[in-house]
């Protein structure tokens, strides 16, 4: 009972900061709109996304509200059908990447020693390679099936998250309460669960937001570069219709606008949450 009360008190204080932040509402509306569009889209689509409904690169008209694409398919229907896999992949990649990174970061943070130092050096070396290159390396070796793509993007996040959580863990392990708990003989397992995890949780939350954004950006880019699922997809739509920009800009502009609304919304949401957490810890 008392535990529950304490928990709800902390979340109210974060919510108190969040509620009055216009960034949160703008971001939430944009993200929610795009997510709804991606989930309900396939049922709302007026045409079959792979059916040919007219001549290629038709401007918006009565039957195709956003015109037709490079092969004469309905742009609106493809836009509505193209978000589901993308959202699932991004969510999965960020979640697994952050989980692995948090695990590695905490592990390296609490077990100081030669092995930890060596692993940290390797992880830092990985960060020298630009992220898109890292993903492409994995795709070159293992192909670009949707699952491989998701795993590759997840793996590319691990070193970055590990770095951030390693630093956060380091701050905890130099605190008196941690030393005291260790001095009275608490094992590493309970130290991690009871002292480290609750105290790095805000850092994990902020990092998860960052990794979500970066995973979505990476997946959109990879599908634009031609490593997507081969199915309808916003990144791929932009790529295949790029040659018709002068004739039928909507085939490119529509997916760009949806992607931009989603990613900007994510950025605003993340920013609002990070500010609220910082404001709470500053109190």
């Amino acid at each position, binding site marked *: 009972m008392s535990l529950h009360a304490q928990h709800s008190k902390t979340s109210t204080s974060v919510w108190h900061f969040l509620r009055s932040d216009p960034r949160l509402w703008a971001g939430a509306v944009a993200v929610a709109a795009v997510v709804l569009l991606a989930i309900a889209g396939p049922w709302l689509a007026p045409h079959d996304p792979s059916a040919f409904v007219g001549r290629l690169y038709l401007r918006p008209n009565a039957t195709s509200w956003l015109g037709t694409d490079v092969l004469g398919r309905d742009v609106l229907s493809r836009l509505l059908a193209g978000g589901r896999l993308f959202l699932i992949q991004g969510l999965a990649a960020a979640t697994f990447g952050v989980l692995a990174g948090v695990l590695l970061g905490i592990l390296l943070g609490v077990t100081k020693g030669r092995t930890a130092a060596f692993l940290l050096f390797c992880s830092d*070396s990985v960060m020298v*390679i630009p*992220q898109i290159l890292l993903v*492409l390396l994995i795709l*070159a070796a293992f192909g670009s099936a949707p699952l491989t793509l998701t795993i590759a993007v997840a793996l590319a996040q691990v070193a970055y998250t590990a770095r951030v959580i390693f630093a956060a863990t380091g701050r905890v392990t130099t605190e008196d309460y941690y030393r005291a708990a260790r001095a009275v003989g608490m094992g590493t397992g309970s130290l991690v669960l009871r002292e480290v995890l609750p105290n790095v949780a805000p850092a994990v939350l902020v990092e998860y937001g960052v990794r979500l954004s970066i995973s979505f950006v990476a997946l*959109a880019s990879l599908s634009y570069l031609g490593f997507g699922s081969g199915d309808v997809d916003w990144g791929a739509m932009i790529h295949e219709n790029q040659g018709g*920009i002068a004739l039928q800009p909507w085939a*490119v502009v529509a997916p*760009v606008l949806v992607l931009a609304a989603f*990613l900007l919304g994510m950025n605003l949401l993340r920013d609002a949450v990070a500010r609220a957490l910082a404001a709470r810890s500053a109190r």
Partner: protein
Amino acid sequence: MSRTTQVSTRLIIRRVLTGVAMLVTVSVLVFVATQALPGDIARTILGQNATAEQLTQLRGELGLDLPVWQQYLHWATGLLTGDLGTSLASGSPVAELLRVRVLNSLTVVLIALVITLPLGLLLGLAAARRGPADVGISAAVQTILSLPEFVVGIVLVVLFGGGLFRWLPPTSPLDPRQLAWNQPRLLILPIATMVLIALPHLVEATKTLLREELASDYVRWARLSGLGDVRLLTGYALPNVLGPISQVAGVTVNYLLGGVVAVETVFAFPGIGSELVAAVAARDIVVVQVIAIGIAAVLLVTFLIADLIGLLTNPRLRRSR
């Protein structure tokens, strides 16, 4: 030799050695990720219908039947002696395949860097003073930061390459017989995209560093003694953050080199980025490895130079005369 000089020499040697160790680590990682992990490259190249003899022969040609560490040593010594190997997809030497493309990419990246660095410092300086300039610059910075690199390029194409205005060519298929430098009209949009990609990070970091400096005691004392904002920023805060800013400039190169992949693809620009994408699609790991190591090596040298500038401009390590 004074004591301080010795200290900074030792620091410099240490930093160089760390750089070399990182390059070795990166090369091992690149090699392991592409070649040593389970996953049959020979079958990938030849496809599912390959016969057993064909597979064995290709494995022999690629040296895949040797122990992994021997494969790595063979590959690494090849790179060091300038033997970059033969492309699996085209059969031509990698060095020949990449020569013109490296020049093309280098042209775009260097011009973008020369534009980005002063512009980024200037905008960061302008945004460090709170006010309408800060609000406008920060909004633009956050917008670009949240978009993928290719979207920035596409937006420029839609605006200036045919969608709205038809001022510039929407793609940049360079003539391979001429230097990129001699085809300036084809370079404008790719370079503009690169600048827009790299600028936000530099502006944001400069702003943050200057704000921290402005909040420090010595600046507040200077302000109390009657110095104006502009004087404080340029005369006091800026010189003190040059070291950290040189490191941020190093990171700018990182964003530019990562950006070549998407930007060159958007504009069909014949550089190492678009070649990398083609090589990955063709599963041409020899080319992929060389490009990855090349980019990592350039970045490590850049970070090294940036750190050395940071060490040398740090007043606490300044040589006593």
